[in-house]
């Protein structure tokens, strides 16, 4: 049960600024996911919240209290590390009881807490084993159990699933989602570079960029449907959103754009008359591309098709077109290779960017 508030938080190692001007309000019961490319400072931000890393400037408040200089143990947080960080010389039970023993709680209370956590995570049969006798998924659960036992105000997870194999990762992801449901009042911050984890777990996602702080904060669908900038637009969704150069030729409630490669696109993003002639990039997700007989936004020859079963990914390119454009069509379209295709899209799903920023958020 806790609110977090980050105000103008910055982190620098010597001269090198890693994080700049981070402002964030996190409410009780939220599951916030930090997502971003490797090296953008997700772990650093999490460790600053944990108190393991000094905050260079700005303030961090937990429940209204500035905690910049409060040691980790007294911030009411628990952290699950990417490497699990289990104490190798202690049994599962001792691992989970460690924090409470340090806090000098009485035995009965410790036992009850450990047993309850073990119950939730189905670890009861393994309580007397050493970590080395556990599988990766079990170790992961012990690490989570260690956090639960402390009943913290804020849970911090640093890429907790990245050491698991694909199948286990899905299963554990679902377990974490269920865990969150059982503890609706606990605040969780979860770091990942995997957008599927971000999309499925988060109440809100924080997208971080390398060196430029937060790119956007919003619910998963916000980020998907209304990305604020090209970075978020391309980071969320797979394959990444297509970006096509163009120029605004018609303004109003619906905007008309003439593309460099000759096509005409319509977008539901409203523009004013003064925007006429503005150079923009048109963003269309591969899954929003629809084959058409009429006016095409983009047409070209198919280079490659990838049949994935439920969808087929088509890479096509106009004559002289620089990068291929990707369309994701439902079903199997094996015969399209070397054929010419023409695609359009619902204007509501056509995004417009100028200087990297979405015209929707002017």
């Amino acid at each position: 049960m806790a609110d977090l508030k980050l105000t103008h938080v910055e982190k620098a190692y010597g001269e090198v600024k890693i994080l700049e001007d981070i402002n964030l309000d996190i409410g009780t019961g939220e599951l916030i996911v930090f997502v971003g490319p490797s090296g953008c400072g997700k772990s650093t931000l999490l460790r600053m919240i944990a108190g393991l890393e000094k905050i260079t400037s700005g303030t961090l408040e937990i429940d209204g209290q500035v905690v910049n200089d409060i040691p980790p143990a007294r911030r009411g947080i628990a952290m699950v590390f990417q490497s699990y960080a289990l104490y190798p010389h202690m049994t599962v039970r001792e691992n989970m009881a460690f924090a409470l023993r340090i806090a000098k709680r009485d035995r009965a209370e410790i036992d009850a807490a450990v047993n309850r956590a073990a119950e939730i995570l189905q670890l009861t049969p393994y309580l007397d084993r050493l970590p080395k006798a556990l599988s990766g998924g079990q170790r992961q659960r012990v690490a989570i159990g260690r956090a639960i036992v402390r009943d913290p105000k804020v849970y911090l997870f640093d890429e907790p699933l990245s050491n698991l194999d694909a199948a286990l990762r899905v299963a554990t992801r679902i377990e974490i989602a269920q865990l969150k449901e059982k503890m609706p009042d606990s605040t969780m911050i979860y770091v990942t570079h995997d957008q599927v984890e971000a999309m499925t777990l988060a109440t809100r996602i924080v997208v971080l960029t390398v060196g430029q702080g937060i790119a956007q904060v919003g619910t998963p669908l916000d980020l998907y449907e209304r990305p604020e900038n090209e970075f978020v637009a391309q980071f969320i969704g797979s394959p990444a959103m297509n970006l096509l150069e163009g120029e605004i030729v018609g303004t109003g409630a619906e905007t008309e754009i003439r593309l460099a490669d000759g096509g005409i696109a319509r977008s539901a993003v409203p523009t004013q008359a003064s925007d006429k002639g503005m150079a923009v990039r048109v963003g269309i997700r591969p899954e929003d591309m629809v084959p058409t007989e009429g006016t095409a936004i983009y047409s070209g020859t198919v280079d490659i098709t990838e049949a994935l079963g439920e969808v087929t990914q088509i890479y096509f390119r106009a004559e002289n077109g620089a990068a291929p454009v990707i369309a994701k069509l439902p079903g199997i379209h094996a015969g399209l290779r070397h054929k010419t295709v023409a695609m359009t899209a619902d204007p509501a799903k056509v995004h417009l960017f100028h200087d990297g920023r979405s015209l929707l958020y002017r």
Partner: protein
Amino acid sequence: MENIAGRKSALNWAVHLSVLALVALWVLPTFGLLVSSFRTGDQIAASGWWRALTTQEQQLSPIRVEGEEVERNGAYEIAGTLFPRARSTVSVWGTSSRAIDAYKAGETADLDDGETLTLEADGSYLLRSPVSLKDTRLPRIFATASQPPEFTLANYRTVLFGKSTGTSIGQAFLNTATVAIPATVIPILVAAFAAYALAWMSFPGRALLVAAIVGLLVVPLQLALIPLLQFHNWIGIGKGYLGIWLAHTGFGLPLAIYLLRNYMVGLPRDIIENARVDGASEFEIFVKIILPLSFPALASFAIFQFLWTWNDLLVALVFLGTGNDQLVLTGALVNLLGSRGGEWEILATSAFVSIAVPLAVFFAMQKYLVRGLLAGSVK
């Protein structure tokens, strides 16, 4: 391919053979020492230790007939045995050094003046004479006998509990333990704290401190002996156990800190940070996380330090007195070589007593030795 495989197996052979040679080089003398320590001086002089388990045929030193004279049937007889204790078997014998194999066992020798001497295989003899043998020189027997293997604990009794002067190995053993155990424990206690600080606590000058310790590793100990003793005298410790503990601690610390720091630096950072999040203080992290996880390194250093202080002579000579209450094993062995240099059984036993503890320590802890030394180099 074949070539490479061939060379590799040749290399393997070379490795195996040299390991074998090294093992033999090391084990044979040790084992010889052990066997010899259970044999009597005569046995050691007569045959090598590798024949200790077989029956030995050997020429005994001449034994003069002795015993109470009894008169029977008008003749005077003396009966006795050559081997009051051992179960040896006589094969041939004689009564003069020029003919030591004149008779077989059970035969009767005719001596001058009507005397006869009979020697049975089991060593019992009977001397018979028509006149009284009182006040005459009795004949000597030069027997060749085969002796079954025989081992004795007498050497250990003598060496450990004997009260002979200046060379009481039992007392020296205790003295050495009094030196070696604290001289192992104290540096570990100090070094573990120092190593943790140097590995995991950030403070200004840490890198310089580590560099200084690496520098101290190469300072030869001989350089410091005399100044250190002068210093001890000056502050009033003088010669004694406290002085030698401190000296060994000082000489051992650089290596101890260096080994332990390197090991601790390699411990996963996450584990320590997790303990910090769990609310553990630096001291609790040290005691509950770092120390248990560093056990291999602690053990390997402990083995080093213990073996070195146990076998040390130089530092003991400088910092301890030479009285019975301060003489260490190595010193006592040196004394023995001088005072009882010919008594091999005593020397062998003493030597074995002095290596028994290092051997036991080594075998008990060897896995930590390897693990601790390799720490950091292999994942």
